[in-house]
């Protein structure tokens, strides 16, 4: 066990801290994806190598050689200072890694730069009404007509489709192949004729996801990532990235700090919440869980640095544990606020900008989205523990 990153890294950490001291105060809070301050902040982060760090310069990134320790230090310091880490979203967290791994040179040149700069927003068109957990049974189809794909079908739960410029979409192109082998990964513009978006309001009261309908949507033949029929493989290559980001312990740490702050300032009946031993114990339990997940994250990091260190299980549990932990943390804040914890929307008595209730619900959404907790448990037991799969049932009729 050696926990020091070495002197050159401590120097780097000092650099990050200086940047945060000088600029951190100007990082946008709760600004929208398209807000000028969000885009300006993103630009500053890229220029300094604090986001899009290892993306080559020709694709608009900072172009540093991959160094996961440095990435790690950046994440730690930003979380500690509670400074906005730049834009996220499915384009940046899922599509860009996919393109870097499997895109053509032309795709990388055209799409990565505007995406990481926040000028090109993406949505993810995977789930369908009949294909959620069983994603591979999707039926939206695309057929080649000359030099164009023609797409017909329907997606659902498409987050941010109403804002997106482009979609990355799984479609069936080889109807006669076995279901996992008949899917392709297509990219197209959301203003293409034939796309209809119907907003779906979620339990938080916001219409963040949508039903997305495709009627004879035409796109150039080369807007495919990987080969025909390889879409499942392409999608799976990045699903891991999504799941890591959903359980991210550094974000959870920021919320833990906010909760601790709340407990130090909020009083009920004249007593600070932190002075109540029962609440304090609950906080300590949550803190212990956050700590475990952060060290788990370090171990996963280490396994990528050191050959022969196996942390497959440690990585596999992140989405399950991370989203449940975050849901519990947000719920605890509601509990300790008593009736005030119910405040929502325009209620002047909301604490912490009203985030506790909405995050509590949102994280229930993330327990479901990106592969439900039950599906995560199936993966852990079947792939992680090598337990036999449920017997497959053939399609009736």
């Amino acid at each position, binding site marked *: 066990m050696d926990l020091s990153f070495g002197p050159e890294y401590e120097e780097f950490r000092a650099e990050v801290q200086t940047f945060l001291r000088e600029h951190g105060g100007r990082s946008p809070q709760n600004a929208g994806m398209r807000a000028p301050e969000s885009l300006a902040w993103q630009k500053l982060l890229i220029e300094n190598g604090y986001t899009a760090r290892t993306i080559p310069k020709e694709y608009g990134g900072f172009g540093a050689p991959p160094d996961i320790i440095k990435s790690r230090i950046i994440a730690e310091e930003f979380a500690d200072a509670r400074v906005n880490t730049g834009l996220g979203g499915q384009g940046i967290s899922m599509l860009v890694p996919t393109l870097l791994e499997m895109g053509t040179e032309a795709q990388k040149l055209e799409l990565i730069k505007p995406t990481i700069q926040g000028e090109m927003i993406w949505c993810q068109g995977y789930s369908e009404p009949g294909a959620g957990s069983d994603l591979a049974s999707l039926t939206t189809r695309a057929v080649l007509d000359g030099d164009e794909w023609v797409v017909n079908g329907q997606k659902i739960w498409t987050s941010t489709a109403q804002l997106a410029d482009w979609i990355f979409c799984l479609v069936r192109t080889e109807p006669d192949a076995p279901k996992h082998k008949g899917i392709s990964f297509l990219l197209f513009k959301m203003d293409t004729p034939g796309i209809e978006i119907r907003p779906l309001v979620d339990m938080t009261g916001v219409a963040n996801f949508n039903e997305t309908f495709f009627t004879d949507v035409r796109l150039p033949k080369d807007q495919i990532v990987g080969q025909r029929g390889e879409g499942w493989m392409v999608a799976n290559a990045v699903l891991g990235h999504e799941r890591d980001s959903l359980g991210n312990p550094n974000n959870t740490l920021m919320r833990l700090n906010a909760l601790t702050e709340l407990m130090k300032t909020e009083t009920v009946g004249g007593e600070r919440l932190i002075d109540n031993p029962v609440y304090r114990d609950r906080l300590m339990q949550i803190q212990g869980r956050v700590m475990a997940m952060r060290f788990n994250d370090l171990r996963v990091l280490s396994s990528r640095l050191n050959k022969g260190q196996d942390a497959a299980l440690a990585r596999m549990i992140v989405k399950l544990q991370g989203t449940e932990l975050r849901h519990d943390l947000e719920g605890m804040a509601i509990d300790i606020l008593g009736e005030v914890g*119910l405040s929502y929307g325009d209620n002047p008595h909301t604490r912490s900008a009203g985030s506790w209730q909405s995050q509590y619900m949102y994280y229930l959404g993330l327990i479901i989205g990106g592969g439900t907790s039950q599906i995560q448990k199936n993966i852990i037991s079947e792939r992680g523990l090598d337990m036999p799969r449920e017997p497959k049932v053939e399609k009736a009729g």
Partner: protein
Amino acid sequence: MRFGLSEEQTLLEDSVNRFLRDHVALDRVRTYADGDSDDDIWQGLTELGIPALLVPEAQGGVELSPLDAAVVAESLGYHVAPGPFLGSAVMAPTALASAGDHDEELSALAAGEFRIGIAFGESIGRRIEAQVTAAGGRISGSSLFAFDADADAYLVADSNHHLYLVRAAATGLERAVLTTVDRTRRTVELTYNNVEAELVSDDTSVYEATLDIGRVMLAADTLGAAQAMIDQAVAYAKQREQFNRPIASFQAVKHMCAEMTASLEPCRAMVWFAAHALADLPDEARVTACHTKAHLAEVGKFVAKTATEVHGGMGFTDLLGLHYWFKRCGSNRQWLGAPELVREEAAQLQGLA
């Protein structure tokens, strides 16, 4: 021995359920959430005699027991029904009847013509921005999350556990709606600028009886709401197919439903007992009321989350509306004392703290 509802209570349950099913389906709940009044709902429940349930016969009531009220509360929770039941039909009649001397208000309550809301924030947990001081027949300060928004008067408890009646129309009273997650109920902030306040009782046992029955009713409401969520989850799981089979055939989904049931089923007996104890077992009433409130809060939270998960993405939508039940369980949990606070009271009542 007979541990269960009487025939009359089952009939009462059926008639309330029938009314709510026919007149307060989810669409109606949504229109209330969007700002409509609940007058017609309260009117319908009045025709069934609900506001008179706990009012003494002498004041035109039917003088039934807390268990009868719990049966109604459960039905209201099952249908996430809006309405002033908790204050006007349960807590206010309990307070006024045990304090005595309020025949006129009790008769008006029994007739469904008068609504009395509850403002207990100060006595449950005083906040920096809301404190109540009462002296010389006047009250100053403010109450948060008073329920309901359309009451004609409010029963206000101060930190000494004295109860006051404040008219909504009194000079110096301001009332502002406070949005909460639970849109099946409307709560308000009351601001008292030296407002006339009639002392109802300075006997703390009146306050305690009022609080206890309120807590048991919130627990009964959660019992109904959670049962509705389980019923919906089970029905959805049988019908939704993935991997060429109903998701109900996956053991993971079955176990979620079985765990919800295993947690909620004992709650039914607990709510019955707690309600019964309020009238008939004074030595056990207070502790059981606290535990029932807290335990149902925990089980309700678990069921609300799990039933949503069984529905997958659909559970997260407004379209399905499952979130109305989720949030109802959530607000029942927070009102009149969140679990830790109520459990601490249970310990104190037993001399353990």
